[in-house]
C-alpha cells in the first residue's frame, strides 16, 4: 500500500510536471545555440513561465516520493515501474499539448505497459 501511494505520486507528479515543463519550453521555442551563455539565457526565460514553476513543484513532489521509496525498494524494481507514466504521458501529450499520437506510438506505449506489468510480477 505504501509502495502504491508513493509510486502513484512519482508517476502522476512526474508526468504532470514534465507536461507542464514541455508546455513552457514550447512557448520559448526550439533551442539552436548550445553555448553556455545561451543555455543560461534560455533558463532565465524558462523560469519566467508560470508553467515551468508548476512543473518544478510537481517534479519536486515526485522526487521526494522517489527518495522515500528508494530507502527500502530495489532501484531495478522502482525505476521500471515508473514507466507507467508512458500511458499517462502519451494521453497528456495528446490532450494537453495537441500532439498527434499515431497508432504505432500507441502500440509502443501499450508494450511499455505490458513490460511494466511483467516487472511488477517478477
Amino acid at each position, binding site marked *: 500500500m505504501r509502495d502504491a501511494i508513493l509510486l502513484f505520486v512519482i508517476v502522476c507528479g512526474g508526468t504532470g510536471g*514534465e*507536461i507542464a*515543463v*514541455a508546455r513552457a*519550453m*514550447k*512557448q*520559448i*521555442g*526550439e*533551442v539552436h545555440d*548550445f553555448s553556455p551563455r545561451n*543555455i543560461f539565457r*534560455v533558463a532565465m526565460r524558462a523560469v519566467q513561465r508560470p508553467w515551468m514553476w508548476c512543473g518544478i513543484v510537481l*517534479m519536486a513532489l515526485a*522526487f*521526494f516520493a*522517489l*527518495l522515500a*521509496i*528508494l*530507502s*527500502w525498494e*530495489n*532501484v*531495478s*524494481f*522502482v*525505476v*521500471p515501474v*515508473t*514507466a507507467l507514466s*508512458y500511458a499517462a*504521458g*502519451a494521453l*497528456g*501529450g495528446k490532450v494537453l*499539448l*495537441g*500532439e*498527434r*499520437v*499515431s497508432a*504505432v*506510438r500507441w*502500440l*509502443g*506505449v*501499450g*508494450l*511499455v*505497459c*505490458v*513490460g*511494466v506489468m*511483467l*516487472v*511488477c*510480477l*517478477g
Partner: protein
Amino acid sequence: MKPEARLHLKTSILIFFVIMFGSLGNISLSKGMKHVGTFSSWRPGDVMPFLARALESGMVWLGILLLILFFVAYTLVLSWADYSFVQPASSIGYGVVAVLGYFLLGEAVTSTRWIGVAVICLGVFLVSQTPPRTTEQA
C-alpha cells in the same frame, strides 16, 4: 546534412545524455538512500528529519547533481521534440538502470523482470520509429 537528418542526430545525442544522467542519478540515489534508514511514517515531524538525513548523504547529492544534468538535457530536447516521442525514447534508461542495479548494486533481478524490461525497450523502439515532431512550431 539535410535539416531533417540534423534534427534526428541532435535529438539522438541529447537523448543519450538524458539516459545516462538519469540512470546514473537513480543508481546514486538508491545507493545513498539504503543507508538513510527506511521511510516509515507520514507525520510531518518524522518526514522532515528523514529528508534531513537523506541530504547528509554524499551519494544522494551526487544523484541530485546527475538528475539536474538529466533535467537540463531533457528540457533542452523538449524545446523542439514532441513529449510523446522524447518520453518513450528515453525509457531505454529503464533497461540501463536494471543492468546497473544488477552490476553496481548487486540487486537480484528475476528473469520475468528482465523480460519486462526487454518488452519496455521494444515498446520504446516502436515509438522511436515515429517522427519526432507532429505539431507546428510556435
